């Protein structure tokens, strides 16, 4: 555990040094411009639009950072040969993977947290009423991104950084549409196809089962039991993806 933490702290410092936090500033600028723009074109609905599109922007900005950094997290160490220095010490490959993930997870918490807090402040200023649901929704966006990060790290253990990034984005998109796969299993007449689509449904992370964006803008109330169950599901998915990444990385020959 101490070794994982040591790698994590190092990864956190390294990713912060890469000026990833600049994304928050970019996001802040985008939100300020968007708030001025939306106020003039939304017929008095700027508060609602800010909340909805703001959370979409938190997801989008977070996804870009999560996927591109996670894809190079392990590869960079291998290409720079710094991985040999690490492995000359009593650090196992799986500890290295977990440490990298935890460290980058902490960085993403700062990134997504910063964007969410800024969105909260802007919507408070624009809509004149604080909406704590935005903070919870931001937290759920973070949990979603943890899954995408874990999957991307897994892909990066056996493919190039670019391919891992692309696959990570594909998994995110597929995860948003996973309920459609379930519909496919119900309409298909072929048992074999049903089995395959059901398998795909279990493999793809279900990123759309719960999303508080609808309740943030007043479309229905959040079911907290469902949110908790879904968070536990995503946590389990992250563990599985990281175990797979550790296994794949453990078989790699340098």
């Amino acid at each position, binding site marked *: 555990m101490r070794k994982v933490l040591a790698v994590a702290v190092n990864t956190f410092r390294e990713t912060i040094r890469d000026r990833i936090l600049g994304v928050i500033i970019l996001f802040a600028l985008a939100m300020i411009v968007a708030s001025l723009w939306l106020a003039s074109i939304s017929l008095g609905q700027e508060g609602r639009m800010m909340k909805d599109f703001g959370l979409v922007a938190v997801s989008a900005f977070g996804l870009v950072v999560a996927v591109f950094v996670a894809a190079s997290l392990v590869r960079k160490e291998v290409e720079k040969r710094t991985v040999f220095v690490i492995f000359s010490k009593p650090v196992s490959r799986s500890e290295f993977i977990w440490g990298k993930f935890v460290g980058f997870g902490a960085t993403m918490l700062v990134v997504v947290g910063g964007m969410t807090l800024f969105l909260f402040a802007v919507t408070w200023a624009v809509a004149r009423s604080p909406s704590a649901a935005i903070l919870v929704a931001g937290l759920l966006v973070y949990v979603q991104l943890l899954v995408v990060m874990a999957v991307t790290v897994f892909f990066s253990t056996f493919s190039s950084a670019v391919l891992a990034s692309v696959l990570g984005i594909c998994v995110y998109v597929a995860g948003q*549409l996973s309920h459609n796969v379930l519909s496919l299993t119900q309409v298909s007449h072929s048992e074999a196809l049903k089995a395959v689509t059901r398998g795909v449904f279990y493999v793809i992370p279900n990123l759309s089962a719960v999303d508080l964006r609808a309740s943030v*803008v007043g479309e229905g109330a959040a079911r907290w039991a469902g949110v908790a169950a879904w968070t536990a599901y995503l946590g389990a998915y992250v563990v599985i993806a990281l175990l797979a990444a550790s296994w794949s990385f453990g078989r790699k020959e340098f």
Partner: protein
Amino acid sequence: MRGARKLLLALSVAACVAVVVGYQSTRAAAGLSNPRVFVPKVSFYQRFSPAMRVTIGDVYWLFAVQYYGEHVDTDHRLDSLPATLDVVTSMSPRFKQAYFFGAFALLDAGRPDLGYALLERGFKANPNDWHFPFYLGFFAYTFASNKDKDRIAAQWYAKAAALPGHLPSVERLAADLYTKGNAKGKAIELWAQVYGQGDKYARDKAVAALDRLLPDDKTAREKAVARLKDLMPASRFDQFIADVFAGYL
């Protein structure tokens, strides 16, 4: 030599900027966009996850506002407005502003019937908001052409009056329209409620209206008034009797 190269570079950059700006400035200003816009059916978007549906609805809301603003005072063509509003309100059924704006924008599109239907759908999705039956009453009264329109409008206003937060005048409107629609019994009941809940102005209005609606015969009037006891607080009923029978003393 170095100075000449720098000058050449600066001239090249300036020439390139001039070409880029020059080309763009010669483009014709965008004219009116086509009023017939392709809007996919709601069932297409229903396949998306709930959170995406809300965002899709909000994107179409922004589009609907721009589309209405662009066409309402120019070519007066709002062909795609009904379909757009259908998507907005189906994706975000609790987006009340969309129903209100949509209903009145559909008037400009020459389709009060669709505006009425939109408000009905909105009331189904938001049954506790008095604005919906209030506007439905307005639409029924203003745009319906059948002989029952007063009674239908009165029914909507009565529904609005039963919901929390309504304007005090809603009950009076309902009572007035029941009177016009020859639903005397309902009008009397509503005026009694107005008396029971209203201020001095509302009470005076109620007494004046009830004076016209209640039978002139004292015994018949007493019988009719006795039935209204449950419609107002007991503390007001004695004053009510005194007001309604003022001319008989």
